[in-house]
């Protein structure tokens, strides 16, 4: 049986996450509540 797949579409709430910043802080999307956020996801490859 196929597992459910999470897909975030336009109109959905952006799921919160916490990741370590390059300068060593834990940063959550929810730190930005009340602000508009451009979330850019990239790689060095």
């Amino acid at each position, binding site marked *: *049986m*196929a*597992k*459910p*797949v*999470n*897909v*975030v*579409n*336009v*109109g*959905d*709430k*952006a*799921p919160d*996450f916490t*990741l*370590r*910043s*390059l300068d060593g802080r834990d*940063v959550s*999307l929810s730190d*930005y*509540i*009340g*602000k*508009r*956020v*451009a*979330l*850019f*996801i*990239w*790689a*060095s*490859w």
Partner: protein
Amino acid sequence: MVLTVAVDVQGADKARPYTEKANATFTTVVDEANALGQLYGYKAIPNLFLIEADGTVSFKELGTFNVLEPAKRAIVDQWAATGATSEKGNTEDLDGSHAQANAHFLFGQQLFKRGMTQDALTEWRKGVALEPDNYNIRKQIWAIENPDRFYDGKVDYDWQDEQLAKGL
């Protein structure tokens, strides 16, 4: 606000030179486990999600958001200035193989962290076999096996096209 997510199992040291070169004033976090590929549902990057003050996604572009292209940067500038963008964005179809492919990726990442690089590569290849167009996993394999084709600001995209043509 601009928040960028650098995806690489090799962590901050691989991402930092890029943001330093760009004199970045924005915050960059590192996603070593491809957590957002699972949470947000994508299998290729670069991606842009525009998120409103109430946390609602108002735009997404997957796989093609090359920030070096002025037209792409203009999307963010227009949205920041006017509150909207005239671009349509895109989406990807994901099926049940995505969660399993990511599970192999995550397992491989744990092996990689323990220095078991060959075992990690084996797990990642299982992930690619399940979801052949998962470029997050595919390129991570390439980047580990061929570091000279990546990093230091010179990514060899012609070489990547050759690998695809060879079915790797």
